[in-house]
């Protein structure tokens, strides 16, 4: 059964690594629903957050393939329930519509959205939330004609105490020191 999974990977910030990771999905004909890459809490280490709808066993396999990449430190996967996640959406509506009734303002309040910029031609509204929530607001606003709409990839954080990335690096050092490699 296909389910939605959130894959997280920590990696060195190297050119081309994004490509190395995405081809793992392409090769297996797995669609990436959303993808976010940015610097993690530690400088020089990037964090990938990738959302897919797939069977668990396939995701397990993909995550191992990601972790196998030389420049990837660690990769995990989680179900949606196991993580707290958000997406951000921006909506551009005609300012005219905002002036003509208070419906847009009410919608903004009800959805906990906020207004970022108002010009005489357009108004930009921002909302963070799950996809259903940003979508619902889109449908509401679109009654007044949304001029532009953009939704970000997902960012997600686990429910466990903290990221422990620095501890992870210390553990990794110990692990690497513990393996006596065959002499070449």
């Amino acid at each position: 059964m296909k389910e939605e999974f959130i894959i997280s990977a920590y990696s060195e910030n190297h050119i081309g690594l994004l490509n190395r990771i995405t081809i793992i999905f392409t090769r297996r004909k797995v669609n990436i629903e959303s993808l976010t890459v940015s610097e993690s809490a530690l400088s020089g280490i990037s964090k990938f957050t990738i959302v897919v709808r797939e069977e668990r066993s396939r995701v397990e396999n993909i995550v191992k393939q990601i972790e196998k990449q030389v420049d990837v430190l660690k990769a995990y996967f989680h179900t949606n329930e196991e993580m707290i996640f958000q997406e951000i959406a921006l909506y551009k509506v005609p300012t005219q519509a905002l002036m003509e009734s208070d419906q847009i303002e009410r919608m903004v309040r009800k959805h906990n959205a906020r207004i970022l910029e108002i010009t005489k031609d357009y108004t930009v509204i921002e909302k963070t939330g799950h996809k259903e929530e940003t979508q619902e607001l889109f449908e509401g606003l679109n009654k007044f004609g949304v001029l532009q709409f953009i939704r970000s990839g997902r960012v997600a954080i686990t429910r466990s105490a903290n990221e422990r990335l620095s501890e992870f690096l210390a553990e990794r050092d110990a692990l690497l020191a513990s393996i006596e490699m065959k002499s070449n």
Partner: protein
Amino acid sequence: MTAPSKEFMEMKQKAMQITGAEAVIRSLLEEGVETIFGYPGGAIMPVYDALYDFDKQVRHILTRHEQGAVHAAQGYARVTGDVGVCFATSGPGATNLITGIADAMIDSTPLVCITGQVASPLLGTDAFQESDVVGISMPVTKWNYQITTPEEIPTAIAQAFYIARSGRPGPVVLDLTKDAQFGKVDFTYKRCEKIRSYVPEYPLDKESLKSAADLINSAKKPFLLFGQGVVLSGAERELQEFIEKAGIPAAGTLLGLSALDSEHELNTGMLGMHGNYGPNIKTNECDVLIAVGMRFDDRVTGDVKRYARQAKVIHLEIDPSEINKIIKADVAVLGDAKKSLRMLTRLVKKQEHTDWVNEFHQAADIENEKVIQKDLFPVKPGLTMGEVVRMSSELTNNQSVVVADVGQNQMAAARYSKFSKTRSHISSGGLGTMGFGLPAAIGAKIGAPDREVVAFVGDGGLQMTIQELGTIAQENLPVKLVVLNNHFLGMVRQWQQLFFERRYSFTEMVNPDFVKIAEGFGIPGKQVTTREELKVAMKEMIDNPGPFLLDVLVEKEDNIFPMVPTGASVSDILLSAEE
């Protein structure tokens, strides 16, 4: 004495600087490289120019095609266990390497390929002979990297070698821009010892080893499969000690074959589609299946849904991504095969499974009667591939390095060669690359100059890289080339016969006179069609101090059996077409 002037110091500093191109060569020397296989061109000319001054320290083999260079580097790596090195220019030079790199990737062969690239300001401009080598090679390399400054060269090369040879080995591509080759650098070299984002192997987990030993100790019908991982980790002796102590019959994958002496009493032969009868049927009868350094390729497993369902599976493997990829392991032991096997041998009880081992012997008798006798002692006058291969094995006392191309010739070489030494069987497994054999034999001979290297190639595969006869001639390499010539793309024809109602669509070939071609290259050769001629000619080939091409006209429409047809279970293995 007055202190040296500032100008003098600066001059001295400059003098210690070398070009990036020279830094490449010096870095390779630091890694112990003795042989480079390659082909020059515009974008890698500075490196070739630097190489000109190092002909005492390093041997460069000029192949006739970059594909030849990379397969030769693979052959070299497979026979020595060292990293194979090749050079190519940008654009077409680099793209010509790709087949070999893909082959090395799937067969875990350590390679460092250095490709020239246009100068960095030209990157992305569709400059002459620019191609996106990092992009193209990404799916088929363990790691790749583009070097655009001379300063990066030593570190990148150190990392490349470390990555290529450590853990599960694989190919690495370094794409080197021309300006990085021309630029100057203060050269210091430090070998790479670790990379924080990369865990080449995991330390042994005592718990899983203990669970594995428990399963093995209580097994009645244990069966061990050994793959190339055993060779790559140098665990041949550990493998033998383990099976001897625990009394476990064993069988090899195509790439694992020479890890265990063919004559060892517990060696039951080869696994897979054209493997031996016993190992295939017993896979579905054993109670504990121990897989060591192998990846359950579909040519080994047949239908996975009907593969070893009755058995508990123990998987000893260095690469975590192989665990549970195809066959779910009841016990997975991550780590280097040598260390795992050594530990496991300590934990298992001394046992014998005489009746169980006898079952393999009985299966071998059946195969012997139904297949092997017919191949080795045919009643028909036409020569079989099997008898040719076996004769070569016997004439070289099972000591030769056997290189094979792809197709029926490959399966005959694997089935009928006997091995008494490890790293003696070099064949393109995962990719099945026709054209691999001849250039791989070149690399093997250079890597093992004191061993007899016999390459079995098909008439089809030979013509894919036949130009490498030029390399053999130029280097005067005593490679023995046996063409198993059936005037067909034999393996495809076999499938057409068995599964496509003998519709021989584009598999018959009109061949040139291979002996004449060899002669044109200055390589002696003979063509044989009869049993009497064969023995004489093969002796002549072996005794000849230089290279030799033996064109053996074999039965045109023979088939390789046994066979597990695609989609069938290993236990449904066929012994003949009539079944």
